[in-house]
């Protein structure tokens, strides 16, 4: 390497190569992705978030929730089980056959084989697929996250640190009222919660002629002084709508599970 030209060539080759690999190729492979269908149905997935939830996604971004929360569920494997749905013409033979087979905690291949044997004996079967892994066992989701889940997100907020739980399926775990109470005073909902409160998303105001129907029903130690009420601002409402829209549980070809 005697002159600067070679350095230029080196940079061009190295960075250009990875640019093609990790910018261009993914865009060609995934950039044109469209909705897929939910496994064994004609439903499309994902459906975009409702308008309020889309605005809520931007509240989530602005307040940096992704600094403590991920939105990606990991899965270490899956297990299959075979169930008999119809015994067929010769129930006794099928029962005997079943008692000789292992039908739970199977790999996909073993489940297919067992199912084939029963079908050959005249019965009808169904294969159930369950995803496994610590994230799934914690109830953070029913399957791993896949590329399809993020199709309509802008920006995609995967997160990289789990100071708080994964939120890929937060919408499946709590309702809007809980989310609002939790945002205003996390400790009111989760004892000893380490999540900071987001009080500025709420307005503490004097109760007018009638209390607002939206006012939070807080436990006494978190309630405002008598005569005051806590009402969510639009941002809080949008954020709660976004959290409720977080559901990535649909069975897909790329992440098969049984509902």
């Amino acid at each position, binding site marked *: 390497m005697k002159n600067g030209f070679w350095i230029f060539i*080196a940079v061009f080759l190295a960075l250009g190569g*990875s640019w093609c690999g*990790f910018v261009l190729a993914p865009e060609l492979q*995934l*950039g044109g992705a469209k909705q897929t269908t939910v496994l064994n149905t004609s439903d499309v997935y994902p459906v975009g978030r409702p308008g309020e939830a889309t605005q809520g996604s931007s509240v989530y971004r602005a307040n940096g929730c992704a*600094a403590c929360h991920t939105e990606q569920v*990991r899965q270490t494997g899956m297990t299959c089980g075979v169930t008999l749905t119809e015994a067929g013409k010769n129930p006794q033979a099928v029962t005997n056959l079943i008692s000789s087979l292992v039908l739970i905690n199977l790999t996909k291949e073993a489940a297919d084989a067992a199912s084939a044997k029963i079908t050959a004996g005249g019965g009808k079967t169904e294969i159930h697929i369950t995803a496994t892994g610590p994230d799934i066992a914690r109830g953070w989701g029913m399957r791993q996250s896949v*590329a399809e889940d993020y199709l309509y997100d802008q920006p995609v907020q995967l997160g990289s640190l789990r100071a*708080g739980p994964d939120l890929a399926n937060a919408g499946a775990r709590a309702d809007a009222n809980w989310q609002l109470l939790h945002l205003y005073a996390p400790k009111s909902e989760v004892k000893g919660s380490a999540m900071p409160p987001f*009080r500025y998303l709420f307005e503490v105001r004097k109760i007018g002629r009638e209390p607002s129907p939206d006012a939070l029903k807080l436990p006494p130690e978190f309630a405002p002084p008598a005569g005051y009420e806590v009402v969510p601002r639009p941002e809080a409402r949008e954020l709660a709508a976004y959290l409720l829209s977080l559901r990535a549980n649909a069975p897909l070809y790329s992440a098969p599970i049984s509902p």
Partner: protein
Amino acid sequence: MSEMKTPDARAEIPDPMIDASLRLPLLALFGGAAFWLVVSSVLAMIASIKFHAPDFLAACPWLIYGRVQPAADDALLYGFCIPAGLGVALWLVAQLGQAPLRGAIVPVVAAKLWHLGVLVGLIGILSGNSTGFAWLEFPRAGSVILFFAYLLLALWAMMNFAARRERALHPSHWFLVAALLWFPWTYSTANLFLVAWPVRGVVQGIIGWWFANNLIFLWLALVGVGTAFYFLPKFSGRPLQSYYLALFAFWTLILFGTWCGIPPGAPLPAWMPTLSSVAATLTVVPVLAIAIIMWKTLRGPTSGCNITPAPLSSLSANEVGGEGRGEVASLSLNSNPLAPSPLPAQAGRGSRQQSQAAPPTNCEPKGGPFCFIRFGFASFVLSSLMFIAMACPRISRVTEFTWFGPAQTQLQLYGFFAMTMFGAIYHLLPRVVGVELPFPKLARLQFWLSMSGVLLFIVPLAIGGVEQGMKLNNPGIAFMDATNAMLPFLRTSTVGLLLILLGNLLFALIFFAMTFVWGKSLLKKAHAIVTAPLKNQEVKA
């Protein structure tokens, strides 16, 4: 390249003209960098305290964790690391090429512009206008300013490189010039495809990882290692061991390193994380090569005997430069910079120079800059190995999403890069401003503060992160229990951040004291009329 032309045999005469030509651009770059360094550690402190007291400053939307934490990271990366790296690169390119910087006003303006961009970006994050992408949080206005400021600075460095009088390339050249070209490409790609015309869906994540890897891992590695390759031979009095190994390390680093960064568990088609893991494994090769180069350069047996008198004299001139340079630089540009300093204080060093001509057993290097750069080098190897480990699927199962990641990042940004830059700046700043380091003891103190701070930060978080990961992987342990088990580790890391904050304050203090002394000496020399306004600007920046 023939033996005769090995970089260490070049006649590198410390030319006061060169140092003087760089003075204002470097002061502008480093001044802002010192300021943002302190800002970043204050923000990091605020963020860290929130884990012990979640209600701390929670009522103020500008200071919530989700804004302060990315702001602290970006203030360190864009506020300190990049401008400091650019400043050191400008100096090294000029020094190695023996060419003074022309048109210094442009880099001065570009440096101010850069720091303005950082200000705009940080205000953007704190006011809730972050883009939401890691390391790319600055809103559009900030990133556009940064991009053009960088282009100007890199252009000037490249022009200086093209105009070099010493044509032969030093290994540092490859690393630094590659880094200069690196940033515009990655930064523009990320901003165009993520912020300006966003691609859809999870491709955003991929480009984000590609960008972060190429900036945090590669850009910093290129500049930091390039800097160390210049300084370590200087400190040890032995040539770089060896030229060809350095060439090998350079090529393998940029060929393999660019493909790292996509976590094994990412929700992507399998080929991408797999390719990235393979590349990360191969990156062990350049990391080890760099480790071997450094090791052999510092500890090599008798290779030091081969040094020719030329680098020795330049070495000694460099070593004594601090004292004599004040006059040399500002009084007479024609005086012989090689003339040994007659100060009695130099006796110790003088005897060391003599012994260097003999077998190099006495080359044991001392002094502040060397400590910084040696520690930075050790951190580079360790943080790279941590980075590579995190790309291994089996380890990643445990460490992904835990505090192990932030620990690795901090070791890379602060332990490796910032420490290397401190060392380089303490070495070159006295030569550039022609003022002696005002409190050499304080620089030592800063080393100890910063070093123990970074260790107290990363060691507990890395260990705690592994524990946290194992607990999170055991669904029998409640999430809250796994999180609470992190608290003692987080507490220690907060103490580490406090020490880092003190170290950063000392650095800023030394830097501004030096510009102050320089400004005063200028006044004394009746250059006041011309240069005093600039000095005021420096102090503000």
